[in-house]
């Protein structure tokens, strides 16, 4: 089959590889009809996530048709159309039982590696480094899905791939980010980063009752899309977001701040340069420019929600502000399984059509170009959907 493989920094290729097979009783094989490139795939593309190996198959946002099931999977059959959570979860450990699916104890065969980095291992993820399981991803014609009796959700008739594909990651991720803000009536939520997760965080914040959302980015088309979603917008290259946020909220600061940028934040000024240099020489794994701004801007007693990906260590965290303003910070890989059904219902009811995000639809073969334009934000690229069987689409 054809699959998008990582071969090094800024080197992804479409390789011909063997088809996946059932390896465990609870596996299923899915024929991928649509798969997307995630902003977090760009951290792999840029070489900032450790433990990638040449030849690893990328992709954790995918859906398709069940073609084969292991003997332990009785709830799916050949031909079922499913979306697959990017987090791999067993459904029976302490964490899965408490709806903390991305913390599954049993899905990372390389848990020891993650334990060295983090003390404990989160769940395995599709196509996201050996540290997080080393599972082959779904930017491919076929993919093996472990614990298929727990993760995949059957898609009701009448919904297109594009309407449900983002249930695999970015819609739940944006939604959980907003949920982590414990939004109350009258709240103002600031969202750093108007990429795909930021866009869903903006819309989810409104769904959860926010009165105002202020979105921060520098890319005009992304700011425009945020505005279309109801947000007020700030271009951080034109105005200092800290000052502006304070002015826009009567001096109080936003009730909640969402960092949907993560480890590769851009900024202005000397501290930003400091991070770029330190990250470049690997003295600092992540550039936490946005996180610092969020902590500084947030109102006293407010919430900082971090859906953005951080992989390692950061410098110069304003811990004094965090403590003295009595902030709360919440984060985590998304507990996708928890949100699949409720968010599918919102799509079915027409509360949101997630396909608003898609700017590019390309055959799988064009993945290398797709990664490049997405990374460089060329051609107004916001979200790319790849079609492995383009001819049949």
């Amino acid at each position: 089959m054809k699959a998008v493989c990582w071969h090094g920094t800024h080197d992804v290729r479409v390789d011909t590889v063997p088809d996946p097979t059932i390896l465990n009783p609870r596996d299923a094989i899915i024929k991928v009809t649509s798969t997307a490139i995630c902003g977090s795939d760009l951290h792999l593309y840029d070489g900032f996530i450790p433990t990638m190996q040449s030849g690893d198959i990328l992709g954790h946002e995918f859906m398709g048709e069940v073609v084969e099931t292991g003997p332990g999977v009785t709830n799916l059959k050949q031909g079922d159309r499913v979306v697959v959570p990017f987090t791999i979860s067993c459904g029976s450990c302490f964490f899965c039982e408490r709806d903390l699916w991305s913390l599954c104890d049993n899905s990372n065969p390389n848990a020891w590696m993650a334990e060295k980095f983090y003390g404990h291992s989160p769940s395995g993820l599709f196509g996201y480094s050996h540290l997080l399981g080393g599972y082959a991803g779904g930017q491919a014609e076929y993919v093996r899905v472990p614990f298929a009796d727990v993760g995949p959700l059957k898609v009701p008739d009448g919904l297109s791939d594009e309407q449900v594909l983002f249930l695999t990651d970015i819609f739940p991720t944006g939604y959980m980010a907003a949920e982590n803000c414990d939004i109350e009536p009258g709240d103002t939520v600031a969202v750093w980063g108007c990429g795909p997760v930021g866009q869903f965080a903006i819309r989810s914040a409104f769904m959860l009752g926010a009165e105002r959302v202020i979105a921060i980015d520098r890319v005009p088309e992304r700011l425009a899309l945020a505005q279309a979603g109801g947000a007020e917008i700030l271009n951080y290259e034109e105005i200092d977001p800290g000052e502006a946020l304070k002015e826009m909220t009567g001096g109080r600061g936003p009730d909640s701040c969402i960092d949907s940028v993560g480890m590769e934040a851009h900024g202005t000024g000397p501290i930003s340069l400091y991070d770029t240099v330190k990250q470049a020489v690997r003295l600092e794994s992540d550039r936490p420019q946005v996180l610092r701004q969020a902590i500084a801007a947030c109102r006293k007693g407010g919430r900082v929600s971090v859906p953005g990906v951080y992989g390692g260590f950061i410098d110069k965290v304003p811990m004094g502000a965090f403590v003295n303003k009595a902030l709360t910070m919440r984060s985590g890989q998304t507990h996708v399984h928890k949100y699949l059904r409720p968010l599918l219902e919102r799509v079915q009811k027409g509360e949101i059509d997630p396909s608003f995000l898609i700017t590019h639809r390309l055959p799988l073969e064009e993945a290398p170009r797709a990664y490049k334009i997405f990374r460089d934000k060329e051609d107004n690229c916001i979200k790319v959907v790849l079609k492995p069987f383009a001819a049949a689409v």
Partner: protein
Amino acid sequence: MEDSVSKQPSKDTEASKLERWASIISGGALVLGGLQQRSLRGILMAAAGGSLAYQGVQKKSTLKQVGEAVGIEKTILVEKTVTINRPAAELYSFWRQFDNLPKFMRHVKSVQVHDAQHSHWVANAPLDQSIEWDAVIVDDQPDRLIAWTSTDDAEVNHSGFVRFQPATGDRGTEVKVVMEYELPGGAVAAAIAKLFGEEPEQQIGDDLSRFKQLMETGEIATTDGQPKGA
């Protein structure tokens, strides 16, 4: 061969060893911290008391005496705990069936059960070699604890126990494994040391992770055999 244990001056009386054993199998503290310089095997032997199944175990093998004489004796001591979301009784029963162990212990090739107390273990060693020993159960408390030690004639003195303790607040069962390998030196020691690599804790930890996966999900997570680009 004389009983070498009785000749060794020891601060530990058998009674104090028994006391320590009682605290090990019920306590919440780190076992190895409490053992300090003392041997797990010594305490296990005291726990076994005068049981008939245990006769002869206190003698040291010739190989071990040689190892001690030339000062290349090496002891690997490991302690590792994992919490498993299943009842203690179920975990105990699965473990007590020793021929289940190779399903999740990567280096154990086979365990042949001879009778209620005795079993024969074969572990993989580098270069297609294997290491074998006979083990005897010295303490067996249903749903709670299994302790074993290798018999006198084993090339490798291996002792250990697994303890199953209910976790607080319905959080499953805490499974603690403590193992000791006394290596006699020479080729066998080298093979075992290599077997365990730099970090025996990690290997025992991995075995315990696989035990947990098997008991909680019915399978062991893997990516072996999945496709990959050239």
